[in-house]
Structure formats: structure tokens, C-alpha cells
């Protein structure tokens, strides 16, 4: 049982909030303590004065008539465009769609272009160079990964090989000293490579495999698939998403917010290294709070009075980690999905917050993905001398640009 002072018990008793079991204690104290009796009398005086005043505080008939006349009018019709714009789903689709189109435009402008060699240049790299049969292919490399590794480890992207020619990664050196022939990508992430001679001999990496027949007259052009984006070791991801509240612990604080396109928007920048990324986020979303504001000294008060105003929307920034499902596991999914989970810690103007999120990055294009997230947010702030906590569950959809 809570221990209250007798003065507090008097206030609670007059307000009808004092538990029955404590009333006898109060009454016995009141019977003997004159100071308490005086205190009780003063509290009663204030209460009676307030009750009497409240009874006389009524809206005037004219005011009531004005308000009731507003109810007689039918609700104002809303135009089709206003209804469409007010729909959160429509706004979200429009925002994500616009971002998607912009992303494709930016991606197509910034992405490396495909280079096609001229016939004369191509010939320079092919038959003439390979006619030196003594050369043995010792290593096949691309600038990003070995071709052999791609062939072996990437069953999703089978490489069409000429039937008459074995894999260029397999070679045999007979009696001649090995010379190296490297596959050099003619354009990064394009589908054409050419074999060229290099002067530096290197040791063979495979032995005992069948001898390669002559590839004398056939230009050897290998069509490499585009490198799947998921296999990039590191990348920068910039994303923007629209969030919509699913549940809030204090729903009575909720009020309609403006239809600004900026509202309920979160921007994130993350740097992913393999399956883990460092992420920084900034958001502007609906999260009702009471925010404090210092008022000037009023009517002789010694200290400034702090007043609290409700705030429906809140800016916040935060940073944290995201862990992505490994590529080899994600490959078993039917679509190019990359599930992830993350945790963020951040701050707002009113307090501190923590966010947990689970989601999917749908890699629809090499440089553009769509995010679907389920996010939980806890915000802690002070109201007066008390710490308050509010929780929110929201769903988000957005677009991610990957560089």
C-alpha cells in the first residue's frame, strides 16, 4: 500500500480517490490533529467554491444555437482529387512510383555503358593472338572475380560455351613453357571478354587435365553474365520509404496530420559489407508527444512556467546495424529477395528512441530495389518530472538505390 501524507489523503478523500481501508486512518488523525482539521477545512472550501462556480459555467443559448446549426448542415463533400490525395495508400504509391522512375533514370545515366569492340579491334584480340599454340592458358581472370569461380559458383547464371572448345579455365601445358593468357573484360559488367597474350609467364594452376585442342581459327569470345548485384562485396544503399502507422499505444492522442508529402517519410543511407551494413536514418513521422516550452514568468511567478503542447509529428535521426540474409541462402527464395533485420538507436527533439525492423529488399533491378519493412519504435521522453514511453508499430514501403 502506498504511504501518503495526511494532507494528500485529505485531497484524495475529497476527490473520492482514497481507498476505503485508509479512510479510518485519516479520520482518526483528523479527530485529534487541529492542523489537519484546518487543512481539511481549507481544502473543502476550495472544492465547494469550484463546484459552485462550475455549476454556473454553461454555454450561452446563442453559442449553443450557433454550434447546433453547424450540425444541421450536411458534411461538406470532398472532391475526387482530394479524396485520392488524402488516401495514404495512394500517396505512398505515388511517392514510391516517382522515386522508382527517378531511380531508373538516374541509374541509367550513371551506370557503366556497354562497349562493343570494332571488328578490327576484336580480331586483334582473338585469332592472331591465340595462334601461338604453345601458349597455355594459365589463369583466367576478370577484374572483379575469376571467371572459373563464376562458372563454378554461380549456377544461376550458366555460361554458354562453344561445344568444340573446353572451358578456358582448364588448360594443359605439354612441353612448352607456359605463357599466360588472361581474359580481360572489355567492359566492366558487360558480356564480352577477349583473350589476350601477356608476356609474364605464370605457373599452371591445374595439371593433368586433357590437352586443349587448337583454338586457332575461332575467335574466342565468351559471354559472361552480368555480375549479380547481390554478390557485390560492398555497396552503398540510399533509400527512401513511406511509413504508415499500424498501431500506437496511446491512440487517443492521435489526430489527423497534414497531407504533406514529406510526412511519414524516412530516408536511410547504409553501407553494406557482405551481409552486414551500417545504417543512418532520418525520419519525419506521426508520433504524438507532449513537448515542453518554457513560458515567461507569469503574474509574478518566481520561475518560468513550463508548458506542454501536443505535437503530432516528430523529426528523428538514428543509426544502427542491419544484417542481411546471406546470398547463398537468399538464392533459394523464389524471387530476388534479400531479407534483413536491423536495430537503430536515435534521438529526437524531445527524447531518445529505439527502433527494430525486419524487412525484405526486393532486388528488381541491378541498381534499384524495393523495400518492405515492419518497424517497431519506442520513444522515451519527459513530461514534467515523469519519464513517458510511447510505442508504435508501422509498416513501410520504399525504394532503394544501390551504388
Amino acid at each position, binding site marked *: 500500500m502506498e504511504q501518503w501524507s495526511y494532507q494528500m489523503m485529505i485531497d484524495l478523500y475529497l*476527490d473520492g480517490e482514497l481507498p476505503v481501508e485508509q479512510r479510518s486512518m485519516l479520520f482518526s488523525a483528523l479527530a485529534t490533529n487541529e492542523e489537519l482539521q484546518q487543512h481539511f477545512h481549507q481544502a473543502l472550501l476550495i472544492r465547494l467554491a469550484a*463546484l*459552485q*462556480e462550475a455549476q454556473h459555467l454553461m454555454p450561452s443559448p446563442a453559442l449553443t444555437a450557433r454550434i447546433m446549426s453547424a450540425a444541421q448542415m450536411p*458534411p461538406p463533400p470532398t472532391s475526387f482529387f482530394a479524396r485520392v490525395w488524402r488516401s495514404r495508400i495512394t500517396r505512398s504509391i505515388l511517392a514510391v512510383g516517382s522515386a522508382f522512375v527517378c531511380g531508373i533514370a538516374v541509374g541509367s545515366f550513371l551506370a557503366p555503358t556497354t562497349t562493343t569492340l570494332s571488328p578490327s579491334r576484336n580480331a586483334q584480340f582473338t585469332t592472331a593472338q591465340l595462334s601461338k599454340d604453345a601458349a597455355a592458358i594459365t589463369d583466367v581472370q576478370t577484374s572483379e572475380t575469376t571467371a572459373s569461380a563464376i562458372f563454378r559458383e554461380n549456377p544461376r547464371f550458366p555460361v554458354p560455351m562453344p561445344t568444340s572448345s573446353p572451358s578456358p579455365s582448364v588448360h594443359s601445358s605439354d612441353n612448352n613453357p607456359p605463357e599466360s593468357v588472361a581474359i580481360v573484360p572489355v567492359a566492366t559488367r558487360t558480356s564480352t571478354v577477349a583473350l589476350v597474350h601477356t608476356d609474364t609467364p605464370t605457373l599452371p594452376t591445374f595439371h593433368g587435365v586433357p590437352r586443349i585442342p587448337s583454338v586457332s581459327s575461332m575467335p574466342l569470345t565468351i559471354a559472361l553474365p552480368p555480375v549479380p548485384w547481390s554478390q557485390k562485396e560492398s555497396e552503398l544503399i540510399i533509400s527512401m520509404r513511406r511509413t504508415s502507422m499500424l498501431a500506437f499505444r496511446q491512440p487517443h492522442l492521435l489526430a489527423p496530420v497534414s497531407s504533406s508529402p514529406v510526412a511519414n517519410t524516412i530516408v536511410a543511407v547504409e553501407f553494406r559489407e557482405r551481409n552486414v551494413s551500417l545504417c543512418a536514418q532520418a525520419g519525419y513521422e506521426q508520433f504524438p508527444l*507532449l513537448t515542453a516550452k518554457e513560458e515567461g514568468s507569469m503574474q509574478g511567478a518566481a520561475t518560468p*512556467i513550463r508548458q506542454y503542447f501536443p505535437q503530432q509529428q516528430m523529426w528523428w535521426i538514428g543509426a544502427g546495424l542491419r544484417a542481411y540474409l546471406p546470398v547463398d541462402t537468399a538464392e533459394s527464395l523464389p524471387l530476388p529477395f534479400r531479407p534483413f533485420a536491423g536495430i537503430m538507436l536515435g534521438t529526437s527533439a524531445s527524447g531518445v528512441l529505439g527502433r527494430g525492423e525486419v524487412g525484405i529488399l526486393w532486388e528488381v533491378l541491378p541498381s534499384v530495389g524495393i523495400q518492405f519493412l515492419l518497424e517497431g519504435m519506442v520513444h522515451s521522453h519527459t513530461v*514534467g518530472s515523469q519519464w513517458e514511453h510511447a510505442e508504435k508499430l508501422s509498416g513501410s514501403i520504399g525504394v532503394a538505390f544501390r551504388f
Partner: protein
Amino acid sequence: MAQDYSGLSDSELYSLLSQPDHREAAFGELYRRYSHRVFVYCRKILGNSHDADDAFQETFIKLLGSASPKRQMTNFPAFLLTIARNTCRDMLAVRHREHVELIEELHGVACDFSVEQNEINQLITMALDLLPFEWREAIVLQLYANMSYSEIAEAMGVPVTTVRNWICRGKQRLREILQPYFDERDVRSAQ
């Protein structure tokens, strides 16, 4: 046959606000139930009767505007009081109520009471104005609107223990501010 709206719950009445046939009657019933509470709140928080009337009217107009068949109303009194609080805060922020207006208004409010009653009412109002805003809100809702601690907690979105602390501390502070009046009153009664 006319429908009896007095037997309907707040949630049912609120949902009827979006139906043109029942809108006026449902609004009238909700107004009958809660107008006094809202009016007292606006009047005691704003002090100025013109501002209070404006805030009171705006609260109910906003209530009408918020009616939507999609909205599920779980706690109508808290919802209505939240509208009133937001409206009053907006007015306080914009107009920065001045002390002169308050004093003028105090005399106008209490003209129906005895001299002593007028005096104590004015002093209580002035003392309330010296309290922190959330204490004042809680005391007004409890003393004048006759709401329970739990109802106030729901309306203000804070725990009941917080409301209890605010009210008890606020009343303690009120008594401290009014102590000279009480002392003088004791002297007068002794004579």
C-alpha cells in the same frame, strides 16, 4: 418513430455523425452529455470568455469534421477533450493571453455570487494560473469538470499516478498561495 439517442453509447453516437439522417440528433445528444465539461475546461484554461467561446465552438466543429465511418471510436470523452486541449493550446500560443484581460474577465464571471464567493473564485482562478500548465489542466478537469483521475489520465495520455501527483501537488500549491486569504478570513470570522 423517433429514435431514442439517449440510450446509445458514445461510440454509437459518434458513428452516427457521419450519417446525414442521424447527424443532427446524434450530435445533439453528444453535445448534451459533454458540452458542460468542455465549456468549463475552455473557460478555466483560457480565462477570457471570448476565447473560451471560440475554443468551445471550434472543438465541436472539429468533432463534426472528424466524423468518418472508418474511424473506430474507443474513448470518446478523451478524444473530445484532446480536441479541446489542442484548440486551447493553439489559442494560448497565438494570442498569448494577457493578464489585464484575465482580471477584467474575472469580475464578469462571478457577478452572480456573493462578495465572499466572488473573492474566493477570483483568488482560486489567479492561483490556478500560477501553476504549471499540466497541474492546472488536471485540477480544472477534476475540480470543475468533475472527472475521475482515471478519466483525466486517459484524456491527458499519462498514467493515473502522474495525474494524482499533479493534482495533489497542485492543490498543495493552491493552498500555499491562498494561505494569506485563509488567515485573513480566520481573523475576520474571529472578530
